[in-house]
């Protein structure tokens, strides 16, 4: 069973998403802050992470976290999906085409609210790619 970590300060949203992912057969961990996140990820070693961008103390915590994850040996290979409402709060048009290794080192980008089916498809695709990579 693949392990997914949801990192989002919105408790209600992350719990709802957790249920959806559990029903789809994934083992899910929810973390509602970014404090000590790298250590938690290094310990738990999820197969994939769903990461919010805006957190109360830092509007780009998700971007910063993604870069930090890539820099740490134990976490650098964890696939990340950014799942965010940042464009609704600030009209900045962040999108999948902005993904790059230096500023937005993630595998995929999705905007809230996201259709369950679309998110599950993204997850499945990334996990399959990960499996192939390690085969």
């Amino acid at each position: 069973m693949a392990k997914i970590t949801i990192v989002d300060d919105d408790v209600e949203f992350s719990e709802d998403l957790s249920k959806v992912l559990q029903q789809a057969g994934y083992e899910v961990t929810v973390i509602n802050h970014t404090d000590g996140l790298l250590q938690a990820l290094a310990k738990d070693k999820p197969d994939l992470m769903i990461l919010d961008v805006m957190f109360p103390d830092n509007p780009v915590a998700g971007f910063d976290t993604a870069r930090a994850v890539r820099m740490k040996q134990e976490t650098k290979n964890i696939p990340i999906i950014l799942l965010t409402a940042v464009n609704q709060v600030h009209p900045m048009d962040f999108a999948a085409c902005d993904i790059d290794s230096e500023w937005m080192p993630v595998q995929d980008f999705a905007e809230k609210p996201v259709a369950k089916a679309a998110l599950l498809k993204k997850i499945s695709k990334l996990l399959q790619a990960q499996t192939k990579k390690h085969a």
Partner: protein
Amino acid sequence: MAIFTIGKLLDRVEMFENRLTIFYAAVRDQSKDNGAKLLIYYLVRHRKHQQQVLENFKKSDITLARRIKIRDDISFTPDVERQLLQVNPRSINGKTLLAAAMVYDAQLAQFYGRILKAPLNPTATSLIKSLIRLEQRHKLMLKKLLDMKYF
């Protein structure tokens, strides 16, 4: 008499954008201002958007456009050099960044506009016009952000 090419003029912009990108990374890593941190992730995409404009043209067309010679030099000394690049990235706030970025976009559009006055071939004209449109769009987006009064 010195002869300048479109390529050399565009390279000036690229070199300046490279310096800006280094500055943006320093702000990202050092600033404690949330507005600056957010805005920097937006502004750093400017160079990428310029590259995307170029990618819409055939490489061979760009090569030819870059070779076009113009008689008079067109200086490119954006105010952002003084407004941002000479400032400690740690002390930059979102409001300053936004104001400087808006002036920069306007000055870039003016710079391209001056290139457009030189005799160009249709591809070069189209390329420069696309770059001007990008700056105009970018400036509109920044205006939207300014109007939100977050920064």
